[in-house]
């Protein structure tokens, strides 16, 4: 058996799969079901002090499909939890009692120093394992000087994180970052300077998911008006992966990865670029807590097949292979190669090369694509469109 347990900010997770702060963690009943299904930890939905008014609007969810595939991306205009710290305290106590080996973390948001510090003290007393601070919600909260307003300013980030860290006597403090900043490593460095223990990257991206062509009202239509929201799901994975890699290369601080993770394969990628905890939100909202079965089984089988005994062995393995663009070899040349055995002669590669690249594909009398050696630059566009797995490959040129 492979060991899936992983430490994050000194807290031992039975497996790296953690529910992100979101509707999936907005009650102890839901989190209990997730723990029973096998999840390693949960960040309870962001809460605040009782005096902070939370006023939600509906509908708040809108999806975008990739042709016939549902939910390539999800936009929400949800805010933090309507359930204040008094209720969350009770959830923490109940969950810790029933699931002492699972990690129960809370997410908090405050508007002033006293609020942040009060939240920390009360959660610590309730028995939480870790505290996450949302400096990163891109919609609604910034209008009140909260959420991503903080995360977008390294100085504010450092100051606020310091308040939280000061109040925390027992448990580690993690700051959840926004990708909507010119240099996310500056925000991570600010967290490091504050003394907080780790970062979580990324929260949602600010978006406008679409417009109704008949009414001209963007989605979601809330009584005739709409607003910008937070974008999540598979579509944002490459952004999240980049953010985690950049932070891991620049700042020595534990990273919880979140953003577009749906499968064990995604999780492996985030571990490879340096994350030591994996959070998931949209994939669970779409497919349910049950996806944990395949996450755990897939990761275990992968490690087994790689001959690794612990998930720790994956962490950061890909970082040495990421370099600046200017460092990449100019001498390395490849050429496209078509496998005639598997080619189905759809010729979409031909179109892509002709109108999107270098006019380096010709068709023979049987419609087979022929790569013109002198014209092919090896850009790889043809490979990205070919519907047959492994049919087009880029092979190194002779000299």
């Amino acid at each position: 058996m492979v060991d899936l347990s992983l430490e994050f900010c000194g807290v031992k997770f039975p497996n790296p799969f953690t529910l992100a702060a979101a509707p999936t963690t907005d009650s102890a009943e839901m989190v209990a079901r997730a723990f029973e299904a096998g999840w390693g930890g949960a960040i309870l939905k962001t809460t605040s002090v009782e005096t902070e008014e939370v006023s939600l609007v509906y509908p708040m969810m809108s999806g975008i499909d990739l042709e016939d595939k549902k939910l390539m991306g999800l936009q929400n205009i949800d805010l933090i939890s309507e359930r204040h710290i008094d209720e969350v305290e009770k959830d923490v106590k109940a969950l810790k009692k029933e699931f002492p080996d699972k990690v129960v973390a809370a997410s908090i948001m405050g508007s002033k120093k006293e609020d942040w510090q009060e939240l920390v003290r009360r959660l610590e007393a309730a028995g939480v394992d870790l505290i996450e601070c949302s400096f990163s919600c891109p919609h609604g909260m910034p209008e009140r000087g909260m959420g991503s307003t903080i995360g977008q300013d390294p100085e504010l980030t450092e100051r606020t994180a310091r308040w939280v860290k000061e109040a925390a006597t027992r448990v580690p403090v993690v700051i959840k970052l926004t990708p909507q900043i010119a240099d996310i490593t500056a925000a991570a460095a600010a967290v490091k300077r504050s003394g907080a223990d780790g970062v979580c990257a990324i929260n949602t991206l600010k978006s406008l998911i679409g417009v109704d062509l008949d009414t001209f009202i963007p989605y979601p239509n809330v009584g005739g008006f709409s607003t910008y929201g937070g974008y999540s799901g598979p579509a944002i994975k490459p952004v999240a992966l980049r953010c985690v890699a950049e932070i891991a290369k620049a700042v020595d601080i534990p990273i919880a990865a979140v953003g577009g993770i749906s499968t064990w394969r995604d999780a492996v990628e985030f571990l490879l670029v340096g994350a030591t905890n994996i959070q998931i939100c949209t994939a669970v909202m779409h497919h349910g807590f049950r996806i944990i079965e395949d996450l755990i089984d897939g990761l275990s089988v992968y490690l087994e097949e790689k001959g690794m005994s612990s998930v720790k062995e994956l962490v950061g393995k890909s970082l040495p292979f990421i370099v600046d663009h200017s460092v990449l070899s100019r001498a390395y040349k490849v050429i496209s190669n078509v496998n005639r055995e598997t080619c189905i002669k759809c010729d979409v590669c031909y179109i892509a090369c002709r109108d999107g690249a270098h006019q380096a594909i010709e068709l023979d009398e049987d419609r087979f694509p022929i790569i013109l050696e002198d014209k092919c630059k090896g850009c790889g566009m043809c490979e990205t469109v070919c519907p047959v797995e492994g049919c087009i490959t880029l092979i190194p040129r002779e000299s």
Partner: protein
Amino acid sequence: MSVRPRMKELSDEERKSGFDEVEKGLALHQALPEASRCLFCHDAPCVSGCVAGIDVVGFIRRLKTRNFIGAARLAREANVFSAVCARVCPSEEQCERPCSSTNLAEPIAIGALHRFITDEELKRGIRPRQAGTPTGKKVAVIGAGPAGLTCAHELAAQGHEVTVYEAEDEPGGLMIYGIPRYRLPREVVNKEIEYALSPGVNVKTGVRVGKDISFDEIKKDYDAVFIGIGLGYRTQADIPGHDLPGALDAGEFLRLAALGEAPRLSGDVAVIGGGNVAMDAACTAIRAGADKVIVLYRRTEEEMPAWKREIEFARKEGVEFRYLVAPLRFVETDGKLAGIECVSTKLGEPDSSGRPRPEAVPGSEHVVDVSYAILATGQAPWPEAKEVFSGIELNPSGTVKVEPDTLATSVEGVFAGGDAVNGGKTVVQAVTDGKLAAKSINDFLSK
């Protein structure tokens, strides 16, 4: 919305000239989009459609994320003969029938996806199962078909000492001696038999209970017994002239073909019957050299018990179908078969099976000239079972009588399942019976 993929098949020429497997499985670029067409339904209907209760939606999700081995192991947990069933199950009638995707386009090609993951597993080798901690109890299993082998596997994994008695020289039952290799290659069956035996099952082949060892002796030496003897090979034949040279029995013919000893055929060959065995006999006859194969069936295609896919398969190989015709007797010339005297039929009132009764049309007698006739009108239970398993209560049809919930026979500690009980169904039903019997036997032994 992408559509259901089709497996690659041998060309028309290739398939007729040998026993190579005809269907080649899905390619990766077909399997992945098909898996992602699955809706991952709540309380997925496909799972209840699977006779063996495989977590279909679970394995499709694993396949989709390219966790092929995890997918295959999940299926194998519920079905010891996972790779065999992926090939021979009538999935259109089982897991695929209730698939929710049917309401959008077509059901997910579950059978083909199941085959894809088992092929991946076979490529790497099936992980053997460990024997359980010894319990000191001994169980005898009679018959090494899918029912007996599954039962033996599960019991050995529970720590019981299991011995399988098999009359033939090799274990496997109809997976080896019935279902033709062009649909189910020997390598696949052999690898799964090896897996079935992996938790330390003992097998005694070439031992026929009732001849080489008595049932009483077995009952005496073991704490519990499972009977999985299947059906007899031979068709009930009551057509005059059925012992002429040139008149063959489908069960016997397929058995010889499996051993590589099928008679070389020539000229026109008639197959009498409309079930799956008839389809297999027809396609095997083509491979054995027949110029033309004609299936004679006394009702119409509508009533034919063969599965749609088997009929399509035979039709693709050029098998001709003649409906509403019944054989009266075999016609002899020079001491061997030369034709079949038939009568035309019409459909009458429904009979006990609910299908319309074929009625002879007076004056329509005619001879169909053929060099060979293969009789495939259904196997019957072993006729000698009554004497061999004396004390065990049988049904009027000759099948073994059991409690449906436990598969217990009328004799305490003796259980039965598979074709011997149900009169001939499927491999997956035999596997499922084997599992249920193992559970009952385990409960019985832990009392």
